[in-house]
């Protein structure tokens, strides 16, 4: 095992010293994931970085309409009814929805008394970060409303008039109570007292947000373009690693280092195992890098476990391909030429270049002969297709089987060579 690890470390060290190989193994998959993801529409949260929300204005007053207009600065709002809004969130078409509840407009005209204005916010509980951001932005706009009341004399006057007006119609005993209250208030404000955090004043907020969980139904469609380009990037990473290590094994043969290794007290299995280990680890490394980037672009797998199973299965498949390339290639040039000649159509029909769902049906069907297609399907199954164990079993079994068969053929070809 020590020798296998030494072989793998040597190969990875050599890889990291070759700029061309670094580009095709690490940089190109990142370009595919990020640039193509941005080109295909990003994370669906608005072109200017605004969060997409559905708006349900159940209050439908000047106050609610003014608030809705104000928050358009921060959100891309689409008016809907409640059922459509919930559905849009469940399908991932909107990040969330907000409901301006009845009484919102009246509450907007009060300050420090009565019920604050209330918003119902429906978001997928998995999107905690977005939920926090939405709440923060809503509170910011509510605070700006208060500031507007303080700084705009007309608005303040209107608020006082409204309070006085409400007192006119009050029964005499309530007027007396208010007067008593004002007297006590005067005495209170003249006597400085420590403010309790639990006092009603401390709890009063300009906006009450009632959160509601609307779990997304993760199947059928990707949430954003990065959920399409992330699996594509992974595929290019797999291809890059496969080519790099396959050709490096051919180089070992043509340059004589393979003979030197064979003369050493290590078995053929250890030598090939070391190469396979280096390829496998590099593939996993590329996948982790790509996933980290994809995460930052809003990709949220439906199942981490399924995604890991898919990525490992795809890695096994391409390690097998690597061995086949190494076994069949007599020189670096023939190995690279033959591998690209086979891989390009497989990648094309498999969806690594163009998403399969935009292909005509016959091309989609043809794609199933390509292991690339099964790798894409498995990874998508973990990212947005929400595959069950049974659904994931087929692509993973195919990938592992292809990998094992290719590995066996490759090692046999190497032995004969």
């Amino acid at each position, binding site marked *: 095992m020590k020798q296998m690890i030494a072989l793998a470390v040597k190969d990875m060290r050599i890889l990291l010293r*070759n700029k061309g190989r670094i580009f095709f193994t690490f940089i190109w998959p990142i370009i595919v994931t990020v640039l193509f993801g941005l080109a295909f529409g990003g994370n669906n949260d608005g072109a200017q970085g605004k969060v997409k929300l559905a708006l349900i204005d159940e209050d439908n007053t000047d106050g609610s309409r003014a608030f809705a207009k104000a928050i358009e600065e921060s959100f891309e709002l689409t008016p809907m009814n409640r059922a459509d809004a919930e559905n849009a969130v469940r399908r991932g078409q909107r990040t969330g929805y907000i409901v301006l509840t009845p009484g919102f407009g009246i509450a907007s005209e009060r300050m420090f008394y009565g019920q604050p204005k209330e918003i119902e916010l429906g978001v997928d509980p998995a999107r905690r970060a977005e939920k926090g951001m939405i709440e923060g932005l809503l509170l910011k706009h509510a605070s700006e409303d208060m500031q507007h009341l303080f700084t705009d004399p007309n608005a303040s006057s209107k608020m006082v008039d409204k309070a006085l007006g409400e007192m006119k119609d009050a029964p005499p005993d309530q007027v007396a109570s208010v007067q008593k209250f004002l007297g006590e208030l005067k005495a209170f404000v003249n006597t400085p007292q420590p403010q309790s955090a639990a006092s009603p004043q401390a709890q009063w907020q300009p906006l009450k947000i009632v959160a509601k969980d609307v779990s997304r139904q993760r199947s059928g469609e990707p949430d954003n373009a990065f959920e399409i380009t992330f699996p594509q990037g992974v595929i290019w990473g797999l291809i890059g690693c496969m080519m790099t290590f396959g050709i490096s094994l051919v180089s070992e043969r043509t*340059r*004589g280092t393979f003979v030197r290794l064979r*003369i050493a007290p*290590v078995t053929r299995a250890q030598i090939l195992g070391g190469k396979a280990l280096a390829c496998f680890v590099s593939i996993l490394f590329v996948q982790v890098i790509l996933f980290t980037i994809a995460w930052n672009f809003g990709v949220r797998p439906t199942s981490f476990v399924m995604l890991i199973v898919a990525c490992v299965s795809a890695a096994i498949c391409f390690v097998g391909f690597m061995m086949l390339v190494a076994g069949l290639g007599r020189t670096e040039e023939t190995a690279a030429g033959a591998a690209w000649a086979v891989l390009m159509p497989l990648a094309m029909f498999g969806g690594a270049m163009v998403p399969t769902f935009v292909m005509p049906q016959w091309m989609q069907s043809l794609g199933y002969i390509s292991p690339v297609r099964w790798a894409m399907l498995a990874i998508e199954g973990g990212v947005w297709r929400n595959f069950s164990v049974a659904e994931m079993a087929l692509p993973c079994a195919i990938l592992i089987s292809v990998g094992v068969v290719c590995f066996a053929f490759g090692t046999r070809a190497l032995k004969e060579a």
Partner: protein
Amino acid sequence: MPNLLIEPPYRTYVLTLRDVRKTFGKTVAVDGLSLSVRKGEILGLLGPNGAGKSTSVSLSVGLLAPDAGSVVIDGNLDPAKPEVRQKIGVAPQALALYDALSGEENLRFFGEMYGLSGAVLDQRVTWCLEFVGLTDRKKDLAGGYSGGMKRRLNLAAALIHDPQLLLLDEPTVGVDPQSRNKIFESIEELHQQGRTIIYTTHYMEEAERLCDRIAIIDAGKLLALGTLSELLAAHGGPPMLMVKTNGEERRTQTADPLGELNRVAATTTIEAFQMEKPTLEQVFLRLTGRSLRD
């Protein structure tokens, strides 16, 4: 032809090939080769292109299995066994090095392949670099080395695990005189340390300088084996006498040059004469022929 196989006890020999035969399709690469290498000697392996030298080396280190016959290394019948390979070091003709690794990293890696680690590995790497004169350039990538430096590193990689049997396959191909001299000195030092060396070469002067015994093979068969003087005596033929008389130069191959000289002097005046002893190259060409090999 004398019986060239020296029978057991094998312990006097580090390597013995006995009636070894190897074919590739219809091509017979090694045809009943029998050869023994004594402990501590340098055995030169000479032969034209396609003679079967590389196949013989591959058979000797267990890279190829013979179709018939046996290979015995230090009393062990299976050269592919790890404990047997631990005793063998090979410097292939192709520069079997990683260009993207430094000289030190190359040696460290090959040392790890032989199970070395820690202080022992450090010590061996340091010794090998010093031995081939690459200590100052140990941190440079091997890809940036000159041809001679690469050859020296190739030799160092064969020595990293301190083997007792060394197979050097044309170790001076394409190197400058300085590096060649350094390699010669290194090989002579290894010889003095008591290591057994099989030295494959096309350069006759190298075999004459370095080798205790020389084996000439062609078409997979051993044609001659012995010390330089034994080969010259057995296959070199009589010396060449060159006599200049009356402005004319006459060359005569004779086993009795003095008698021939006296005979010539009795009939005419000798202006000058010179005697040329047979060379290894003449022996080689006499045994393997003058036809071109591709």
